[in-house]
């Protein structure tokens, strides 16, 4: 199972722009590499990342093989209300990982 690291401030003022950093362990195999006997190593990447704030999608990304192993994505959002930020990664071979982070807005 993939492990993910999420960095979200626990508290924020209403209307403040918060920076979110996400890192997930994944090989991101490109599908262009070969083994020593010449067989192509099949592609295995994360294709999509979505961040939802209390159920509303606020950010998403489509990834391609040119993204490094262990995809690291930094983006920002406006702290509108207390609640949860949900993160979801989906990819090849039925890969799916979910993570949540709580935020208190005052």
């Amino acid at each position, binding site marked *: 199972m993939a492990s993910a690291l999420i960095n979200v401030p626990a508290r924020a003022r209403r209307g403040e722009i918060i920076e979110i950093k996400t890192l997930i362990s994944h090989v991101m195999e490109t599908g262009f*590499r070969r083994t020593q006997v010449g067989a192509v190593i099949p592609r295995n990447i994360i294709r999509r990342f979505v961040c939802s704030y209390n159920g509303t999608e606020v950010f*998403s990304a*489509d990834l*391609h093989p*040119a993204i490094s192993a262990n995809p690291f*994505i930094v983006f920002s959002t406006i702290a509108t209300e207390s609640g949860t930020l949900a993160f979801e990664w989906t990819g090849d071979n039925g890969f799916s990982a979910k993570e949540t982070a709580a935020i208190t807005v005052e």
Partner: protein
Amino acid sequence: MERRAFLKIAGGVAAGVGLTSIVTVKPARATPAEMQEAIRAVVGSARITPGKVKLDLPPLIENGNAVPLTVTVDSPMTEAEHVRAVHVFTEKNPQPYVVSFHLGPRAGRARVSTRMRLADSQNVVAVCQLSDGSLWSDSAAVVVTLAACLEDGI
């Protein structure tokens, strides 16, 4: 075997050999023209103006396997005027596509970062789509000493 049947089989074999040789000769690498095609396939045919976008990449990269990249767009990020998407493309990686970020007014600030692979010294291009449909771009030339994708697999 009849002559006609023999010719059919021989023709088929020759065509097959021709196809495989084309596939093996083609390098696993995109070209600047392919990158332009890829950009058009993603953002459409509207005019792309240089400006507003800033693509930050180190100019000299030791290891192409993890290159930090930041795209900043000069935009107020309001409901009326915001960045809808940011796309990144490369010239010489096996595929021109790198990543597409989808933002909105709730992003607050138009700045995204990630880490990418670079197979060679080349130009990297960021194209952003604003809410009014206009397209803006920036490019960065990078020199890579150790390329990604070259190491042996398992």
